[in-house]
């Protein structure tokens, strides 16, 4: 009775409860009737058949965001223990352009909404060309001096102790020493990343997208001991699923839906761990790659570790951390259209580049190598779900790799908005004059009207 499932071939379902509450989506709902009489907890199964694991718990990630400890009482830009002067302030772009060598008249015209070269969707492309000799600062960030990015100066941070050293890094809100999260140190006062849990604009944007079907990540936790809450031999697996999450009538992700693992050539993570009083803690680092809830698309984590908690209500919450390549993060922002990102999020992207490079704290080639990676943590909230093997024949009973059966890669490795973004800007196909180092900024006879 523990392995009975409803038919798998449900492509899209709509289930009405009491004639009013609607659930929607393409995930598979386990028949509640079949659950009656089962001793199985929600989202968990005892794997008697495989013999490889004594217990398995399975989840779907309903929220994930960079672990950015919020040190203010309220608001986004307000001062707090993390950022005593609040977030990085809004930028005076006219001054920036004047400092870059444009005349005041040109700078004002570039920022004028009536300027036909300023797209209401893609921004002002000429903003890119403010480096030395009007180089494109998005792809040549060192062509301009470091404009600065104010980072976190507080001592409290969230994440995972990656290097085992309790004398470095932040102290967690619960008092744990040695939390390594230099990404937070770098970007924690950036308006997009800052805010109470689940309320920063970046987290809202990407999680809204994920929850509306852009991607689905499932987590499988299995152990070989008798007590899932205290087991020294545990494995945690992160996988993709092509089944979309389902929202309940209040817009929240619904529990207990069924998801098939979709083998993915890149996005998979398997980590050895142990459990102690329901907390899942890595026992050794692992190199993994997850789907990034951000513009970088790839969340590659070297020496990744987890610190997760199995909650009494069946949910899972906590962190997965590791060292991620910082330049990929920067390129993700550039490919999301530099002029738009800079205007909306109140940073100069070259400042982000310099700050990430400055705070990078890991080299895959050894302590003396170039610091190409930066410590990072993802805060995760997951709900109990039923996770099936890729062929949907049975519920997963253990954590194993499915990469070997993944479809071939399409070749897309860079995040962003698509191929129409060129060097951080979207060229206007209909424009008579394209942005660039030699662009004529002022329209004919504009000098008297646009001051």
């Amino acid at each position: 009775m523990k392995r009975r499932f409803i038919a798998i071939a449900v492509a899209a379902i709509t289930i009405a409860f009491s004639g009013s509450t609607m659930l929607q989506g393409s995930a598979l709902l386990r028949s509640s009737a079949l659950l009656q009489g089962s001793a199985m907890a929600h989202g968990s199964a005892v794997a008697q058949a495989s013999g490889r694991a004594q217990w398995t718990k399975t989840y779907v990630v309903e929220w994930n965001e960079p672990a950015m400890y919020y040190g203010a009482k309220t608001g986004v830009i307000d001062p707090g223990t993390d950022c005593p002067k609040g977030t990085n302030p809004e930028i005076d772009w006219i001054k920036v352009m004047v400092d870059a060598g444009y005349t005041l008249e040109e700078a004002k015209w570039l920022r004028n909404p009536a300027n036909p070269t300023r797209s209401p969707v893609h921004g002002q492309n000429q903003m890119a060309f403010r480096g030395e000799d009007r180089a494109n600062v998005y792809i040549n960030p060192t062509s301009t001096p470091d404009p600065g990015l104010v980072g976190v100066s507080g001592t409290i941070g969230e994440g995972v102790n990656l290097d085992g050293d309790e004398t470095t890094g932040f102290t967690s809100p619960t008092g744990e020493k040695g939390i390594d999260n230099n990404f937070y140190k770098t970007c924690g006062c950036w308006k997009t990343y800052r805010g109470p849990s689940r309320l920063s604009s970046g987290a809202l944007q990407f999680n809204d997208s994920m929850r509306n079907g852009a991607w689905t990540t499932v987590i499988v936790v299995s152990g070989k001991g008798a007590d899932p809450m205290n087991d020294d031999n545990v494995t945690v697996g992160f996988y993709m699923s092509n089944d979309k999450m389902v929202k309940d009538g209040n817009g929240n992700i619904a529990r207990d839906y069924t998801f098939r693992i979709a083998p993915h050539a890149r996005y998979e993570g398997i980590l050895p761990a142990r459990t102690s009083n329901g907390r899942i803690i890595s026992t050794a680092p692992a190199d993994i790659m997850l789907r990034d809830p951000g513009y970088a698309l790839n969340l590659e984590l070297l020496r990744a570790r987890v610190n997760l908690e199995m909650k009494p209500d069946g949910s899972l919450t906590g962190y997965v951390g590791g060292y991620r390549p910082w330049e990929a993060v920067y390129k993700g922002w550039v490919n999301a259209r530099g002029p738009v990102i800079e205007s909306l999020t109140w940073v100069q992207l070259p400042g982000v580049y310099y700050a990430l490079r400055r705070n990078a704290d890991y080299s895959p080639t050894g302590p003396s190598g170039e610091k190409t990676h930066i410590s990072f943590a993802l805060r995760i909230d997951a709900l109990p779900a039923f996770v099936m093997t890729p062929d949907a024949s049975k519920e997963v009973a253990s954590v194993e790799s499915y990469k070997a059966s993944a479809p071939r890669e399409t070749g897309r490795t860079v995040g962003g908005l698509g191929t129409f973004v060129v060097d951080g800007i979207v060229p206007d196909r209909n424009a008579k004059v394209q942005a660039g180092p030699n662009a004529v900024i002022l329209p004919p006879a504009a000098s008297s009207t646009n001051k």
Partner: protein
Amino acid sequence: MNLPFNRRSFLRGLLSGSAVCVALPVLDRFLNCSGSAFADGAKLPVRFGTYFWGLGLTDTPTGGTRWVPSKTGPGYEIMPELESLKPVKDKVSVFSGFRAIGDGRANLVHWSGHASILSGIAPAASGRFDGPSFDTRIADAIGTSTRFKMIDVDASMSRQPVSYSTRTGNGFATPETTPLALYTRLFGAGFQDPNSDNWKPDPAIMLRQSVLSAVKDQRQALMAGVGKADQIKLDQYFTSLRDMENQLAVQLQKPEHCEACVVPTAPKEMPRSASVDAVRANTKTMAKLLAMGLACNQTRVFNFVHTAGTSETYLAGQSKIYHQITHDEPTDAELGYQPETSKLASLVMQALGDFLIELDAIKEGSGTVLDNSLIMAFSDTGYAKIHSIENIPMFLAGRAGGKHKAGQHIHTTGESVTRVSLTAQQLVGAPVGEFGAGSMKTARPISEVMA
């Protein structure tokens, strides 16, 4: 036989415990002997229009709503961003809490929301719908006896014409984008004053009709001689020809006297500017022309775009556009919302107030043009900062000839926007029993607002 139905009746029933309504078509028994008016003397024409504005209204995750009334049912309170609707409040119903449901399809920013509302299907790609917009279905039902089956108006002064009306999902209607163009379309060449004593059939129209009639036999022969696929293509093509024939036939009949029709004077060309005040003035001028076009029975169906989904509007003198402000403005910690965004939303809504007041200013029988119309006003997003497609603001304005129990606030927790769309269709007599696809498929209009 004395049937207990009249022109305002709906067939009502229960489906899975929920109320279901189906509008009745305009049956002969409901009309007077000439069919020119209802048997009870009321004017026959009920007009339908859509009114679209971009960037939603303010209702934030931190609870800072600026448009959702706390009171449901009749007598809702006027919220700050709805202040402009105060003069016509009793003729406007507010719908909150409705959402577009993607069924796993990603939220295509500034597109999925209104595409779902109009087509009933979450779109697969930006720039196209996966089905026709429902205004075309209404035009087929109630727009065949006027000179123009439908009029599309774009008052946004955007760089490209904006229309979301489509019969195929691929091509969108070409709107009139200036007051002069709209005037010329409605009252220029081909306009026949319904109140003129010197009406004569227009020889040019007679000639055009005869040309179409001349090819009728060949048309039928061609249809008989081609395969099924070509028959479908030809049928679509000939349908548009038949529409043209019908419209020409209408113009060869002496138009009915329209007491409210006063032919306006031609407006002057306005300088192009997407500033908020300029777009509002443009909207008001075009609304006045359109209202008189309705009163003069030139059309019964229209689509009116105030601003595009990616609105280009800005406050004169500011360097930021409204679209940018929705994304970059932080939420005020004390207020719980973005104050500048809310201010702009209020200004944008002033244009809707202007629009409805123009329709309400034209007396028609015992009521006004607005009383004999139904306008569905809606936006593309809920919380614009993150492009949310939940809680998209929607309104039904006008009494639809008495069928709309206006002046109510209807609130749900996450039901499909298509319920409002279906309600609109049934209120104006479109022969539609259900609308939408997947989780947005519904046969449940909002019976509370149906008389």
